């Protein structure tokens, strides 16, 4: 290939266009499969669209009716509230477990690689299979869980038939399957804290707890924020794991927002209503995430 003689102009032109070309495919996909659907979804939320409204012109504009309806929908409110409870309960638990396991992993230990691999492995299992694993262990009087309970001399416990137990088993399964991921985030953050800080503290006579409180924890600011936000977003959209673990639980006790919206659209055919519910869900996730962000930032300025 011979040398091309470039003029300065064509060089600048290229510099301007080329990045867009490289970004092109991604932007195209985002536009068509994320931004466009988001706009369409907002539009649907103001119509009485059903799964059978075959041409969009058949759907009638009904203004805020869907939004009024969803405020009246006890089951939707219940599912939403259930999801918020799940977030509020699970985020701190996940945060704590992943942080503590990370702290353990940065101690002087042999076979660290092995431990890290084992703790990370559940992250690789699909949510569908995680639900199956825990259903298999917990379900019924003859599952592994109750067998262990009985061997301790106790009566078998009502597991997935009991709404509270089922709800907490969701928390447990999620924490079990995702701790490894956030653990790694913390491990990296922990490893980047300069040894010199700890050495200085040693010389001042600080014990382990003090070192953690005054050096480790504050240094994890960025990681903490990241973990809080990611876990919040993740729990809000929980779905496949619950489907296989409890199916929505005994009497909808483990029915969360995404499942409710999915069934509203695809089983009750109420596309307009489901879209309005999606919009509400999105708003709530955004608010929660923003809250997390600002609370964490504020904590810094103390």
């Amino acid at each position: 290939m011979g040398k091309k003689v470039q003029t300065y102009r064509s060089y600048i032109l290229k510099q301007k266009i080329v990045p867009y070309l490289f970004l092109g495919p991604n932007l195209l996909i985002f536009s068509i499969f994320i931004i466009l659907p988001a706009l369409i979804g907002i539009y649907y939320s103001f119509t009485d669209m059903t799964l059978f409204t075959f041409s969009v012109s058949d759907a009638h504009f009904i203004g805020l009716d869907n939004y009024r309806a969803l405020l009246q929908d006890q089951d939707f409110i219940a599912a939403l509230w259930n999801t918020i409870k799940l977030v509020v309960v699970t985020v701190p638990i996940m945060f704590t477990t992943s942080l503590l396991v990370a702290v353990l992993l940065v101690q002087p230990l042999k076979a660290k690689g092995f431990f890290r691999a084992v703790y990370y492995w559940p992250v690789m299992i699909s949510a569908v299979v995680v639900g199956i694993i825990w259903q298999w262990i917990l379900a019924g009087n003859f599952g592994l869980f109750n067998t262990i309970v009985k061997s301790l001399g106790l009566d078998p416990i009502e597991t997935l038939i009991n709404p509270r137990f089922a709800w907490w088993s969701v928390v447990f399964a999620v924490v079990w399957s995702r701790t490894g991921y956030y653990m790694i985030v913390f491990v990296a953050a922990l490893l980047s804290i300069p040894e010199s800080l700890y050495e200085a503290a040693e010389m001042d006579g600080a014990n382990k707890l003090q070192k953690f409180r005054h050096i480790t924890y504050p240094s994890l600011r960025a990681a903490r924020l990241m973990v809080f936000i990611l876990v919040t977003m993740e729990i809000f959209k929980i779905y496949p794991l619950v489907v296989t673990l409890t199916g929505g639980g005994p009497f909808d006790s483990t029915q969360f927002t995404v499942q409710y919206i999915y069934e509203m659209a695809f089983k009750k055919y109420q596309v307009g209503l489901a879209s309005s519910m999606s919009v509400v869900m999105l708003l709530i996730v955004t608010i929660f995430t923003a809250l997390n962000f600002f609370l964490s930032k504020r904590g810094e300025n103390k």
Partner: protein
Amino acid sequence: MKKVLFMLFAVLSVLVLVGCKDEGVTELQMLWWSDGTEGDVMQTLLDDYLEETGITIELVPIAYNDYEARLATMISGEEAPALARVTEGHLNNFKTQILPLDDVYDTSGFTNLFYNADGDVISLPMDITANGLFVNLDLLDANGVNYPELGDPVWTWAEFETEMLKLKDKAGVTAPGLFDHQGHRFMPLLYQNGVKIWSTPYSASNLKSTAAVEVVQMMMDFYEEGFLPLDTYVTKNSASLFRTGQYGFHISGNWNVSGYQDLTFDWAVVPMPKMANRATILGGKSLAAFDGSGAEKEAKDFIAWMSEGAQHDAYTGGVPYLTPRLGATVNYGNFADQYAVFLDEIANTNEMYVQDWLNQVMIPGMYPLINQFVQDIADPNNTKTALQLLTDLETALKAAAPTS
């Protein structure tokens, strides 16, 4: 390196395209679900059809829980199957997308036909179903439970409960019996207490009557006392629970007769209890051909073939099922005794209840409403009274009912 990558990509593209190939019209899809042997019997007939005509019809089984949602998304996604097994509920929901069949087969030879808004027949009835009572004879006999047989005076729900309570907390028994979680299984109990749902469809109902409240209260008590287990609402599959042999009875329908052939314990169908009178709900599955599948003509040809006596009777006799084909006699063979009970249930159901249920079925989205209703009855955290639940159901049904 680049070349290798592009070749790999090309190969993958071809594979994907091959995988997504459209069927030509020598291959159709028939959406299906089976409760027992229906799928196997239909498959034999499809094999015969292939031999006779060279056209392959692929049986596509979908779990019943997802069936309607799947059908809905396929139709909405413009991937309608050529044919599908359907209930009256499906026929009602999708009636504008189903092809009329008056010119395809002789509809006068069948009962249980379904019509669209223009009065065209849109289904080929395949079988008639009725609700009924299955019992685990081994458990009943071992625990001295008395039950009526065909011809004996039929027991009341109170007598039924007394007898079945003998099973409670016995060895090998998880709960006296099972009631399918679907609302459809509960509704006949209203009829059994003389409650017709609609006095004037769809503006005046009898759902708030004392008789109706009595029935709902009875059901709520059953769950509270542990007469019926909550497992039904966890697994949503009572048949699989009944199979474990840990339950004395299963209120279900005749579709389980062939399904239960392979049970390891002794079982039978016995008359359902009554309150004021006996009643069962009739239903039926049909075949429907869908518009927009691209194989409409071939689908209609198949339906014509299927409607002929030889094939149709082979289906109803093979499963076996009650037949909607007039003048056909089904040889129930080993299932004669069980079917005799079902036929007896049907014979003892007042025509007004049959008509009432036909009105009920025409309400779009009716099934999710009664399913939720029955789930609330069983829900231990439910705080509403029987009357409140019935009132809410009435309101919801009226709101959903067709206005014309």
